[in-house]
């Protein structure tokens, strides 16, 4: 029989044991009965993708009687911050959406946390449906560098950046839609002269760095992008394109194209200053399109960044199948459904950019322009990805640096030196 003292010790040992087990996170909540597909994604329910994936879940359950889709809505940040830990445990879902690029999906594939989808991609014809530039983010080599190697993810939509403009404000101030870069700067000069800050911007998030990267891209070519993003060559941040980007950006701050106060604003504030009719121009991604369709209370239009063959863009986020997925076949079936014409057309008509839609099935004229522009861009090999992709943590380096350019606390040359240092530290050694 246990004495009181021993009972206390025993209880303490049991308690400690359970705490230790709990802290190791080895609880098993997955099921491998072939009756459940555990799915995580982070698209908002009213976004084009959210609408499309919801329909895909319905379709999947109809086609797989007796199988239930257990969908968990996560935030982008949640998945981004915890993916390596979750995928390393038995809590991994069967299928999840994940950010594309070397520092994200590439890192996970290198560590062996993702399933090689090469066989399925060929068997199910996903490789034929995706254009080469969209496919770049699906493939990762043994070092986790995108563009070649095995399939580790499937993007079912695409995205690119374009200029959104407020037609009512352009009319009010007598400015015509710019067709060339010179016309764009002339238009901005007119707005500044009339006391209007022309560009919506967010220095505390991605918008500012995307302006700067676009300026650099307008002086760059594919080999420049390949060197920067795929490490096929040396990246010199003091070259003509980067120098032009940084100096022009700093110059635009001085000229008043961006407001100085945009340094502390995030992407939401940038979007709101456009939708509220304050800023006449916003250069940002196609991901805003659906929202602007519902939120903008004025006449608006879009055009591609003038006089530039390249722009920011890529295949959308990826469906990845975790190595520990217990229902891989169901996961492949679900990906297949999201690639079907029916779901792709729905995505296109909801304001997204589909990758395998039926051109004639897109009925909304605004969506048609958006998709046609993307197809032209994709055909001309014009997708240059995003500036923060090449090395982990580069997003923060870019945010911090462009904030300093906006506030004038750093010169373009020093800014570029900072980028060089962070890039060289993070990029794989040549």
């Amino acid at each position, binding site marked *: 029989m246990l004495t009181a003292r021993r009972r206390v010790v025993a209880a303490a040992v049991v308690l400690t044991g359970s705490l230790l087990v709990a802290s190791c996170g080895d609880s098993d909540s997955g099921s491998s009965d072939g009756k459940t597909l555990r799915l995580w994604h982070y698209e908002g329910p009213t976004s084009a993708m959210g609408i499309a994936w919801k329909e895909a879940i319905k379709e999947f359950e109809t086609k797989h009687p007796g199988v239930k889709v257990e969908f968990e809505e996560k935030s982008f940040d949640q998945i981004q911050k915890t993916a390596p830990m979750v995928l390393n445990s038995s809590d991994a879902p069967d299928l999840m959406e994940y950010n594309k690029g070397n520092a994200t999906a590439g890192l996970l594939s290198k560590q062996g946390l993702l399933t090689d989808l090469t066989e399925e991609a060929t068997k199910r014809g996903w490789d034929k449906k995706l254009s080469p530039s969209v496919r770049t983010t699906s493939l990762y080599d043994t070092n986790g560098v995108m563009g070649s190697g095995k399939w580790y993810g499937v993007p079912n939509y695409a995205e690119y950046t374009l200029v959104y403009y407020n037609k009512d404000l352009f009319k009010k101030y007598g400015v015509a839609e710019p067709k060339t870069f010179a016309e764009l700067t002339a238009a901005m000069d007119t707005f500044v002269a009339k006391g209007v800050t022309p560009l919506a911007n967010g220095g505390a998030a991605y918008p500012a760095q995307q302006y700067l990267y676009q300026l650099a891209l307008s002086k760059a070519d594919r080999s420049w992008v390949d060197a920067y993003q795929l490490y096929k060559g040396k990246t010199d941040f003091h070259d003509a394109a980067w120098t032009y980007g940084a100096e022009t950006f700093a110059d635009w701050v001085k000229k008043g194209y961006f*407001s100085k106060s945009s*340094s502390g604003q995030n992407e939401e504030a940038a979007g709101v200053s456009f939708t509220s009719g304050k800023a006449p121009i916003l250069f940002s991604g196609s991901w805003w399109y659906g929202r602007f369709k519902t939120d903008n209370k004025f006449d608006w239009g879009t055009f591609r960044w003038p006089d530039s063959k390249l722009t920011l863009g890529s295949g959308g986020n990826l469906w990845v199948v975790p190595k520990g997925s217990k229902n891989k076949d169901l996961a492949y079936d679900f990906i297949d459904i999201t690639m079907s014409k029916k779901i792709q057309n729905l995505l296109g008509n909801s304001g997204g950019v589909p990758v395998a839609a039926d051109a004639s099935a897109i009925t909304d004229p605004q969506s048609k322009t958006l998709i046609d522009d993307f197809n032209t861009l994709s055909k001309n090999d014009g997708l240059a990805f995003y500036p923060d992709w090449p090395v982990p943590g580069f997003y923060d380096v870019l945010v911090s640096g462009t904030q300093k350019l906006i506030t004038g606390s750093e010169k373009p040359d020093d800014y570029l030196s900072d980028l060089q240092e962070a890039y060289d530290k993070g990029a794989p050694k040549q």
Partner: protein
Amino acid sequence: MTVTVERNARAVGKSNAQKPPRGPRDSYALFLLPGALAFLAVIVLPFVMNTYVSFTDWQGVGSPEWSGLANYRELMDDSEFWASFRHSLFMVVAMAAIPTALGLVLAAALFDYVGKHFGSRTAAVLRACFYLPQVLPIAVAGIVWSWILAPDDGSLNALLKAIGLGSWQQDWLGDPDLALYSVMGVMIWVQLGFPLVIFMAGLQRVDPQLYEAAELDGAGWWRRFWHITLPQIRPEIYVVLTWCSIAALKVFGAVYVLTKGGPGGATDVPSYFSFTTFFEKTQVGYGAAISTVLTVLILALSLIGLRLQERTDP
């Protein structure tokens, strides 16, 4: 119940006859065991693991590679880390020094003046008002303050404009010269209630006769505050200073919500720096080194605080 007590008493009596009596320390030690083991599992073990990781080069997945002191050597030369550390010292001023000083004066004023002239209920209501920011989750307070301090349509700038001080309008969180002070201002607001409540509780136990005697001797409010209030509640002051300095060194939520360490790193603090190194840059080994250094510093500060407190204990 009675039977159990008697049986236990008999058992104790029996064992007393055979062995020397056990002191209360021995029997109470048993009750400390579960807590000690839980402390081992959730504090000591993770800390040891974190320290181990800080000696490795690791991206968070795969196997960590032993790199010895490399992370610490890098940390010594990392200007961003030292800048974040300097900001931490500013946070100690905002979250410990100023709230303690202000809290003291306010507590004495509420206790001594408001309480006496307007009644203890009024003093209690005012105390609760000052304490309110402590109850609010920092994320909520941070979001509200980011609205107040927004550059274009923020209410602070709108207020300045409305009262004819338009030229004082600023980009409070976006200007690198101002952002840290703005965050400090918010933190003073958040923190003030805590010292105030502790000091008011401390003042309750000061013998009123001391004040009465001083008053009879003609001591004014300031002299009474300086010679009676301050020395009498010295233990509370040490507790508050230690507690708030630790909170300042590990401040994270406010920086995350208000500025994300920006603009251009102007408000970065070690805990946020460690967080981005861990999760954004996936340099887990380096991030672990930062948090180990931070933990050691906080531990050292706590020990100093405890020693100071012991000295003041009667």
